[in-house]
């Protein structure tokens, strides 16, 4: 049976796993995510994720008021 469409659009609750090897950063998961980055690109991506997460948390708090 096909799943309910709303199941398909839930945000990912499991984090991706980043590891370093040979001077590069590997991001594996969640699901279809698989990327190799230079340390600089990984750091910039990480900071961008942290900033976006903080913004999203503020948005949730404002919505819950």
């Amino acid at each position, binding site marked *: *049976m096909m799943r309910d469409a709303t199941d398909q659009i839930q945000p990912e609750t499991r984090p991706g796993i980043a590891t370093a*090897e*040979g001077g*590069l950063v590997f991001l*594996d998961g*969640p699901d*279809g995510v*698989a990327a*190799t980055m230079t340390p600089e690109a990984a750091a910039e991506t990480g900071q961008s994720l942290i900033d976006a997460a903080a913004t999203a948390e503020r948005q949730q708090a404002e919505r819950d008021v």
Partner: protein
Amino acid sequence: MFTERFLRDKRGASLDANERARIEAAISEVKTFGPRKIIARAGEPLTNSTLLLEGIMSRYLDDRNGLRQLVAIHFPGDFLDLHAFPLKVLDHDVATLTTATVATVPHAEIEAIAEEMPQLIRKLWFATLLDAAIHRAWLFRLGRLDATGRVAHFLCETNARLFSAGLSDGRRFALALTQADLAEICGLTTVHVNRVMRQLREEQLCLFRSSLVEILDPAGLAARAQFNPAYLYIADDSQLPSVQRPR
């Protein structure tokens, strides 16, 4: 015989002697190409289709930076651009990955087969639908699986396809692809593929060295890949590892 691997061991679509003889008679030329040669370019009018006899070929698209995504891999027995018969032009390039020997079948001959042997045309149609089923599996692989899962899925699929063609014993097969090829198949970097291959080896799931693949733990590799060979329509796939997806 040129057609011995075509639709070999496929459920309800294997060729009988007359059908095989008709395709053999339709072959106009047999040619061998060196590795990494483009044999058909996107947009060029085509008047022939190509049955791969030996070697490995690919279909691919390049992005604007010249980075390549392989969208299909073909093994001996694949009629790899049969869809060019109705379409007349391809929307992608076709190239050899290894030295490859191909049999050329003019579209005029396929037209004649359609008149003479409609049941054989249905089997050629089956072959193109099988290609479409494999494309769906490749979409699943790239959309839902992580790096290890993608490589594991490709290796499980290749094992099953080669098993069907009589080129794998179900666990061991020759695969003359580079890690760069695997990267372009799985949407990964070459270093990521290298790391995944090491993980598969350390987890005692699979070995890939000197162009030979040995699946050490078929059930474990299939589980890692979420692989179920049903989409390959192999007549007897009971020897192949499989997982059940949730319904």
